[in-house]
């Protein structure tokens, strides 16, 4: 029963990821694609969490946190790039 529910939720997740990939490929503007990448990271986190429940293993928690961190930093970097044209500023103007 529980397994069945978890598998169903994995199916839902797969559909969501497919939708995100559609947006990633289609997305008319750059922010769309960045948004889709961020969403992909988030859904990946969810998938790993479901897997760790399925396998009853605590080994994947580091991965969850790591993907979270990396996707956050990547998104911020992209946002910086789109907004100002540079990723890291030498001296922030004031």
């Amino acid at each position, binding site marked *: 029963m529980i397994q069945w529910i978890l598998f169903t939720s994995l199916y839902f997740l797969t559909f969501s990821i497919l939708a995100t990939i559609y947006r990633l490929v289609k997305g008319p503007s750059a922010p769309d694609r960045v948004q889709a990448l961020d969403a992909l990271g988030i859904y990946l986190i969810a998938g790993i969490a479901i897997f760790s429940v399925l396998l009853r293993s605590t080994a994947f928690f580091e991965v969850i946190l790591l993907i979270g961190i990396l996707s*956050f930093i990547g998104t*911020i970097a992209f946002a910086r790039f789109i907004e100002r044209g540079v990723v890291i500023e030498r*001296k*922030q103007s004031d």
Partner: protein
Amino acid sequence: MKKLNDVILRTVTKTAVVIILTFSINLFISGHHRPGGGFIGGLAFVTAILLLFLVYDIEMVRKNIPIDFKVFAGIGVLISVFTGVGGMIAGKPFLSQAFGRVALPMFGETEMATSVLFDVGVALAVIGTSLTIIMSIGDDR
């Protein structure tokens, strides 16, 4: 030019950096028996500082962390190599590891191995080199 108004980002960054640093130290320490270790711990550390770079700017981070990261890398590799040399001095082959149990005042009895020192060296080297690379790309003149 006026300063950009990104209060939300800055506020969150202050918390997130702390979380990432905690996590990196966790990764680093767990490397002896579980996945983790010097390289990954070092990289996680770098991500924290990278976040600072992104949200603030290079000058500001440099002012607050006044360390030359190349020196960091050099010291790291030196530490790693010297842990190997330590085995040589004792008459064993290069890179021989020694470990024993040490009673620390707060943590009770802890396992201490020279490979941890090696890992410290690796982590320092990774932090140093990656930050040097990031700075040299971001620091265009």
